[in-house]
């Protein structure tokens, strides 16, 4: 029938019509200061806005638990999450679905976590018992989970040390440099940003699935999810000079391309989590200067 033939055209029109443009609520990773988040995430979002005809609002959250809560409440559509938060979110809210994982600078869609120290304060991990130790967040992959795993390998446990959650990875790094903590656990790539301040890596985990863009399947329709995935996977900065120019303003963790991901890819994380009970700390007021 004739109107059936017109259906794709109508759909295309509806999809590209700015008046019908959908506003997507995006939660960046709470592990960086807001300025950095804006600076790094905003260009990518603008790319997607232009490409897909949608608009974004950034819902800046200070903790993973807050993101998970908002996601479950249907107040968020998309989030940039590390593997552990995703797994945790998935356990609580099965409607979450990973779209893409962002590649690391080495091109791999995986990353590692490290335990770092200031060069002046360097000491073996096993000696950390009783020492102050900085962690990011309970649900951060490189937080309790990875750090505990690495300490266990050295023969100690976090429970033996005086650990504190500082929230953000960079905060962990700088707090260690400032000498406020003897060691800290954080994402390796972030730790490397502070090498010029004398921060050194003591131990590193096996590669884990990289940070992902996850979608709330209850609020984001499958077609849009597909298009989001396609738009991000299509950016190939390594192979395409034009894409390389495009991503120059994107954040460090986003600019190396992305690949499609499935929930099954998170099995290593689930394995890492097994046997580790992440204690939930008593919430405390947010630190200034974050």
């Amino acid at each position: 029938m004739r109107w059936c033939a017109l259906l794709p055209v109508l759909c295309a029109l509806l999809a590209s019509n700015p008046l019908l443009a959908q506003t997507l609520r995006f939660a960046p990773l709470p592990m960086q200061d807001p300025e950095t988040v804006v600076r790094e995430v905003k260009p990518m979002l603008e790319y997607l806005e232009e490409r897909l005809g949608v608009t974004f609002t950034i819902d800046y959250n200070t903790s993973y638990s807050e993101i998970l809560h908002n996601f479950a409440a249907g107040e968020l559509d998309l989030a940039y999450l590390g593997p552990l938060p995703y797994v945790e979110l998935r356990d609580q809210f099965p409607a979450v679905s990973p779209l893409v994982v962002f590649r690391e600078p080495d091109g791999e869609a995986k990353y590692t976590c490290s335990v770092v120290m200031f060069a002046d304060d360097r000491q073996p991990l096993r000696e950390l018992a009783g020492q102050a130790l900085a962690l990011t967040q309970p649900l951060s992959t490189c937080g309790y989970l990875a750090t505990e795993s690495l300490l266990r390998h050295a023969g100690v446990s976090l429970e033996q040390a005086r650990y504190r959650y500082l929230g953000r990875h960079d905060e962990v790094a700088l707090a260690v440099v400032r000498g406020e903590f003897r060691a800290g656990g954080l994402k390796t790539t972030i730790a490397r940003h502070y090498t010029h301040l004398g921060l050194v890596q003591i131990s590193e985990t096996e590669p884990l699935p990289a940070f992902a863009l996850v979608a709330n399947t209850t609020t984001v329709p499958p077609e849009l999810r597909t298009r989001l995935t396609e738009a991000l996977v299509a950016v190939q900065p390594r192979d395409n000079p034009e894409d390389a120019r495009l991503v120059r303003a994107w954040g460090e963790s986003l600019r190396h391309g992305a690949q499609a991901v499935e929930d099954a890819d998170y099995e290593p994380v689930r394995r890492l989590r097994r046997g580790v009970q992440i204690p939930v700390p008593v919430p405390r007021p947010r630190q200034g200067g974050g």
Partner: protein
Amino acid sequence: MKIDRRLVLFAFLLTEALVVLFMYGDWRDKLAMHYERQGIALDTAYRAAVNSFGLASQAYFSEAVARPEILRLFRHGQQAEDERERALARGRLYRRLWPTYERLRDGGLRQLHFHSARGESYLRFFSPEYYGDDLLATQPLVRHVHATRKAMSGFDTGRSLSGFRYLYPLVEGDEFLGSVEMSIPFRHIQKAMQRLDESQEYQLILRREAVENKVPPGFLALYESSCLHPDYLLEDTGLQLPDSPIPPSDQARTIGDQLANRPEVRAIMDRGERQVFSADLAGATWSVTLLPIADPAGEVAAYVLAYAPDPLAQVLQRDFVTATLAASLLLGAILVLLCRVLSSREALRAERAYQQAITDTMGEGLYAQDREGRLTFINPTGRQLLGYEPQEALGECAHALFHRHAANEYTPPSDCPIQHRVNAGQAYEGEEVFKRNDGHLIPVELASRPLYQEGLLVGSVTLFRDISERKRAEERLQLAASVFTSAHEGIMITDPEGHLLMVNEAFTRITGYSQDEVAGHNPNLLSSGRHDRAFYRLLWEQLRTEGYWRGELWNRRKNGELYLQLSTISAVRDEAGNLLHFVGLFADITEMKEHQEKLDFLAHYDALTELPNRVLLLDRLNQAMKLADREQRWVGVLYVDLDEFKGINETYGREVGDQMLLALAKRLAEIRRAGDTVSRLSGDEFAVVFVSLKTESECLQLAQRVLQALSRPVRIGNLLLETTASVGITYYPQGEEVDADQLLRQADQAMYQAKLVGKSRYHVFDAAGDRQLRDQHESLGRLERALARGEFVLYYQPKVNLRTGEVVGAEALLRWQHPERGVLAPGAFLDDLLGQPLEVELSRWVMSQALAQMETWRRKGVELAVSVNVPAQHLQQLDFIHQVQGLLQRYPELPRNSLELEILESSALDNLAHVTDVIKRCAALGVDFSLDDFGTGYSSLSYLKRIPVRILKIDRTFVRDMLEDPSDLALLEAIVQLAHVFQRQLIAEGMETPAQGERLLMLGCDVVQGYGIARPMPAEALPTWLEQWRERRVVNSG
């Protein structure tokens, strides 16, 4: 002077405009000063805020940064050879100064940033992960500090947020290690300013260019375009970043939207100037102060905006409006007042003009005097009456100037009756005489009144009018009255009903009735009874319709005597046409009438016979002619003259003659029928007019009775006298129009004929003969005029010898160039000339003209004899030979025999002896004669022998018929032979064909003239003809 209201209105509007302009200027000046203060206040607040942070940063720098161990660490961090060492030193520096940085942050400082000596970022306490970027390229302030190694501060945009930066060089000993920077985000400056003045709201807008050059792409989305200027941006109004300035309030945004529509805002910002603008917000006035903020390079990088309610501006505006309104009201009030004054002046002026117009328009003269009698005012009529120019007489004493009391004799001013009266406060009225400026005296009627002003006698006002006309009218009336009284004609005046009102003395003298006797009576008192009722009816009818009757009336005097009066009665009506009076004017013409009748009789009748005289006869004849025309009858006019009556008078005396005439007149009167007239014309001449004749014979019978009546003897006393009469008769009507005089003349002429024929008879006038005679007279008159006007010309016909071809001469032929009928041959007019003196005159003219023409030709080399025809009358004049001689003497150059005279046979025979003598004497003068038309007259051989003509001209009829008529030919032959016998030359006239020429040659007649040779031609054509003839002759002979 009349002030134009439009001028006042214009002045008002101008003043109003100036006042409003002044008020406005004052308001704007105050506002500008107010804004200037606001601008200065904002500038001061901004500087105070910035300086306070500057002091703090200076303190921090001195206390915490500019310490030896810090400098050492900084130097080591830059200069250590090992990367790890350098990193360690940087980390240690970070660790060492962290507490200080935290304190700084508490004080509002955002960044503590070490710059290496090479100008690269060494350590950022805020975002320490970023380092190593080249600051000299992007931060002018760093460049400047590194160049001068002196502390410096300034506003600048940054990678994320803009703010004020304080830079200090770091020097250890002489070694320049780099610099350290402390920066405050605008948010803190904003707060500091807010603390200084809580009533203001401060905002910062950044120059787009300065932002876009420094901010990473991701950050640009945080900026919002300023509504004030598209080149300016607002920082992070969504408060995405922690140190972002406080975003604009709704009020500030609303005001901003208002200012966005004002182009001057953008213009001010383009010029980078400080300015204050006002805006209305919910009924309140707000001010917006724009303070430009320069970057270290001196370029405007941002604007600090201060929003605050501005009650003072509102007060100033209110003051302006109030003052303007008050001034306008005041001016309006002045305008109204002025208009009222003007209206009042206008009304006063109009009133004066009205009064002036009244005095100007007055028909009377008006003047005013002061108490001394000096003129203070004269209206135009007064000036005109007195003949003065405006202003001329003012100030003069009226009495001295134009009062002429007492018949122009001098009166001292103290005796001026007018002045005397009015100075006493009394009015004066009367007639006076005024003297005009040109000296003429005019009678005036005047009224003078004392003039009081505010109760005081200040002079007098006098009204006067020229009464010359009235005076003249009175004089005319007086004259009329005297005319009425002393007129020679009787005058009576009645009322409309015809009752006598007044009669004059002449009336009394003519009729014998006095005024008292006739007053109230009808004029029929005088009626004589000689006129019937119809007469009076007509008289009254004409009076009614035409208002006038004139005629003669027989009336009766008081003494019963009849008299004839010539009366003129006129109806006198008023302007509306109502009948007022009848005026009768009459003269006694009784005697005049009798005298006139006597004269009339003498004028029309013969005193002796009492028969109508010639005058009356002609009158009667005229009437008879009219009657005849109407009745289609004849009138017969008899002119009677007694034959030999003169002898009776001479023999028996005039008395007997008169008695005889009386008796004969009586007899004539007896023959007279009704309507006929018998008249004595003079002496023994009578005329009788018979009217209503049916035939001419009827008249002849009556004529016969007249002859008989007059031939009968008359007894006078003892004498029995006898006479006869000759009677001329003529009739009316005739073939042409005639009048009475002509008829009488015709009858007279016929009577003369009767006398000639033998008397005692009648003769009837020959009307046809008379007409012919008159025609001949007219024709002669025309010919005389033609001669006088030079209408006669001569044509010339050549005479040729056929045998030799020689042109022997030409005959001059008379032609009349008639102005209407063209060229006429003599046959058309010669008959009228025949026997008339004009014939001789014309003949003389022909001879003279022919001679003159021969002289003309001769001078041109043409010698030709010319013959002219001479009529018998001319030839027979006794002095003919002298005339010819005289003419020839005028042209002595002409050869002999040039002139030839042609005469008719008949003319020669009338007086043969004289003619023969003339011919001979002419021959002696060299003038030959030819006998024209030979053969048609008597042509008696004996005559031919006696008439000594040299040439015979054979008449054209012989030549014409000779070829057809043998008898003519025979006659011609005989003539030729005869000529030979008598030795006369021959010329044949009328040769028209070559055959005729040949036969004439054969006959022996060589010389011919006629159409066969040439037609008569004008004199000027003859030389050409001669030329052609000679050429032809040469050709023929050749």
